[in-house]
């Protein structure tokens, strides 16, 4: 399927567990981003990547780890999930700096 996909779409986990959210895009876009969306805060950038093996922190990176070994994949890992990480997570990609963002459908994560 063409476009940007995220998996799983829904996830329930417990405090302290490790969780990995997957993001895959088929456009070979250079830039990929992870956001979380919470009521009252809007979309906040967690991490982004300008190319394979290049990642950088966004506004709220604490508690998250990313990697980008391949251009098309950008997984986000919560090493030890906390209740404050309950949120909807969106992956996005663009082909150029500051360019039009293409968003995935989101992953709704609940940490109990």
């Amino acid at each position: 399927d063409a476009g940007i996909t995220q998996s799983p779409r829904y996830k329930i986990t417990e405090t302290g567990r490790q969780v990995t959210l997957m993001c895959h895009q088929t456009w070979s876009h250079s830039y990929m981003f992870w956001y979380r969306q919470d009521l009252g805060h809007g979309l906040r950038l967690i991490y982004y990547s300008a190319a394979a093996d290049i990642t950088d922190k966004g506004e709220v990176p604490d508690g998250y780890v990313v990697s980008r070994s391949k251009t098309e994949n950008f997984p986000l890992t919560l090493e030890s999930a906390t209740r404050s990480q309950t949120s909807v997570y969106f992956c996005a990609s663009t082909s150029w700096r500051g360019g039009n963002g293409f968003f995935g459908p989101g992953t709704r994560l609940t940490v109990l």
Partner: protein
Amino acid sequence: TQLLEQSPQFLSIQEGENLTVYCNSSSVFSSLQWYRQEPGEGPVLLVTVVTGGEVKKLKRLTFQFGDARKDSSLHITAAQPGDTGLYLCAGASRGGSEKLVFGKGTKLTVNP
């Protein structure tokens, strides 16, 4: 830290009415994007404005970028129930940063 303030936060109108959503900042942006997000989905790009004073039209939607590139507005003429959604503005900082700064959004409900 660059901030984008959107107003109003919530807007409920009747079908056929006109409305305007505002996106303001004290910072200058190289470009500004407008997205619409429906429940359970990721944001979808509507338009990108780049030049100060630029006006773009998309059917009944009119987007304007302020002359100083610090603010933008979205005007909808004769709103329809299908326009219901969360409208987000996002700015790319001068110098072509990879990162977008998002406003918190305006939740629009158009009642039939």
